[in-house]
């Protein structure tokens, strides 16, 4: 696409927001990777390097009060909603400054203040749950939209099916976003799925429209997502978007990703990287390079500062183990 020739329906300020958000995601996750190597992050962690355009788009499009639900691969979506970098890195490092002070860990990032209604580590479970906040908006006759992110592999689990049917039957204000990165953990999605497009080819089974989008092109993502969000907000029911993308690294911390052909990885990293694409796009739209670069420099600085803050944050008090099982703040199971 030659962007110069089309009418600029998106506009510079939104584009710069998309750029800034994508950088926040990219740079924070790259930092997380460094912190693993330094053994400052324990446990597991699932990076989404290469998938930033999707989360970023929704981060820019959604309003305060809107709800998002994501998975263990949810650092991006959490950061995109406005969560602090120190809160995310702190949680990964198990520090007091973490979003959940170390209780949840990297797979469960939650930041209700920013509409991040949790990250869920059991495949598919959050899809029906996301219907619930959408149902609440409908019940309360308020106009929040719920967005639920999940992967290609997730379309084969039962909860996906149940939730999509219910959303349509009740015309819930929700947008389902399948990030098709071509693999579940180490298995190619095509090897275990009866249709070519794991989400889009199922849309009709829920009376929904088939929508496939280049998930690495932030502009395309923006346009399609905006439509779906508007539709939901106007009370016209759910949408299912399949966004094609790719993760640059392995499935999780321990995974070198060797099951993927070298050329495939290379192609996606070199030719289809959403950040590279978007840097070029901004130039195509004649956006001032100093602006582009200063946003980047600023974000580099923010990530560095947040890293230092997280590193110097204390580890949680072990008394925290016994808090917040119940709404009374404690963990007693007897009187």
């Amino acid at each position, binding site marked *: 696409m030659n962007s110069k020739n089309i009418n600029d329906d998106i506009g510079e300020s939104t584009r710069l927001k998309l750029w800034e958000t994508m950088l926040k995601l990219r740079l924070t996750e790259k930092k997380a990777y460094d912190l693993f190597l330094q053994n400052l992050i324990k446990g597991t962690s699932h990076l989404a390097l290469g998938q930033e355009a999707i989360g970023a788009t929704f981060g820019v499009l959604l309003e305060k009060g809107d*709800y998002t639900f994501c998975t263990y691969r949810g650092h991006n979506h959490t950061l995109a909603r406005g969560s602090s970098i120190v809160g995310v890195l702190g949680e990964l490092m198990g520090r007091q400054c973490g*979003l*959940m*002070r170390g*209780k*949840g*860990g990297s797979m*469960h990032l*939650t*930041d*209700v*203040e920013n509409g991040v*209604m*949790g990250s*869920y580590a*059991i495949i598919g*479970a*959050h*899809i*029906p*749950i*996301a*219907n*619930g*906040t*959408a*149902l*609440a*908006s409908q*019940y*309360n006759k308020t106009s929040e939209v*719920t967005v639920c992110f999940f992967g290609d592999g997730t379309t084969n689990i*039962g*909860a996906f099916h*149940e*939730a999509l*049917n*219910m959303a349509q*039957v*009740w015309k819930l204000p929700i947008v389902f976003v399948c990030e098709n990165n071509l693999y579940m953990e180490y298995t190619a999605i095509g090897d275990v799925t009866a249709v070519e497009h794991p989400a889009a080819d199922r849309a009709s089974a829920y009376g929904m429209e088939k929508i496939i989008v280049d998930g690495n092109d932030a502009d395309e993502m923006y346009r399609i997502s905006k439509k779906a969000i508007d539709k939901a907000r106007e009370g016209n029911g759910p949408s299912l978007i399949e966004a094609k993308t790719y993760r640059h690294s392995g499935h999780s911390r321990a995974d070198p990703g060797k099951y993927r052909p070298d050329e495939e990885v290379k192609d996606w990293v070199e030719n289809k990287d959403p950040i590279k694409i978007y840097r070029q796009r901004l130039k195509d739209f004649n956006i001032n390079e100093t602006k582009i670069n200063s946003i980047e420099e600023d974000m580099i600085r923010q990530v560095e500062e947040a890293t230092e803050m997280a590193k110097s944050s204390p580890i949680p008090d072990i008394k925290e183990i016994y*808090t*917040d*099982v*119940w*709404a*009374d*703040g404690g*963990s*007693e*199971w*007897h*009187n």
Partner: protein
Amino acid sequence: MAQLTYRESVSLAIAQSMRKDQKVFFMGEDVGAAGGVFKATVGLLDEFGPERIKDCPISEQAILGAAMGAAMSGLRPIAEIMFSDFLAVCWDIIANQIAKTRYMSDGQINIPLVIRTANGGGSKFGAQHSQSLENWSMAIPGLKVVAPSSPRDVLGLMASSVQDPDPVIFYEHKSLYAMKEELDKTDIEIPLGQANIMHKGNDVLLIGLGLMAQRAKKAAEILKEKFNVDATVLDLRTLVPLDLQSIKREAKKCGQVITVEENPRLCGWGAEISSLIIEHCFKDLKGPIKRITTPHIPLPSADILEDNTIPSVDVIVDETLTKLKIKKEK
């Protein structure tokens, strides 16, 4: 004065909660127009309309997921899972999501919801529609577990469950739906974590729940009448929070303890109670704690088989006499 069945108490309890709090709504399969398979929600659709009484597809994960999400945003859903056996098809939503999300979020998220379900045997429905599954949820940190044994308790415990800020699994006993009780008022609250002494005595403590509490009470009456044995019957009412104080007090007083469970033997709630009593009252015990349970088998269907599987009043009487070394011929 009102005479109410256990079944009617369920719909009344829901209605009372819904009248008081606009945030409360109710959802389940065949619950609205049809009033539920056990007719325990008759009349709700008429009073509250389809926005607050929601008929659902056969999608238990979607039902409880939606209930959870709605609770996360401040509503107070009551969701029905038609038979407790079906908790298994949505067990992940219950055990991994509903129960753990508050803790994992470091308290950012509250999940005030009630899952009500028809539990227990006695109807000859066979192994997949008759289980007693209170112990499944007792084993999951983050869930409160309630099992009323009378119309009054349905009213009082449902009111408290709906107001509770934490998730509650509310086990209604199928064989109690027809039970009637005279009540002088219906707008009552019974706090969670408060066991009920159904019969008083010093010789032996019978601890029950749901239908088994009622059977233990009948057994205590027979024990008194025919054998002059004075039994205390403690209806736990809620497993979480557990009324450990009452359990300890009564166990110490009686020195002899029998738990009466409808679930199969292994890892039933009686095991937990038994181990707690050992821990806290070891010196006061005059003998081992006896656990009456269903054998560790799936539940058979035919009348005679089911009737001889679930602990009956007679079995409770007999086991109590055996424990106290009293001959039945007395």
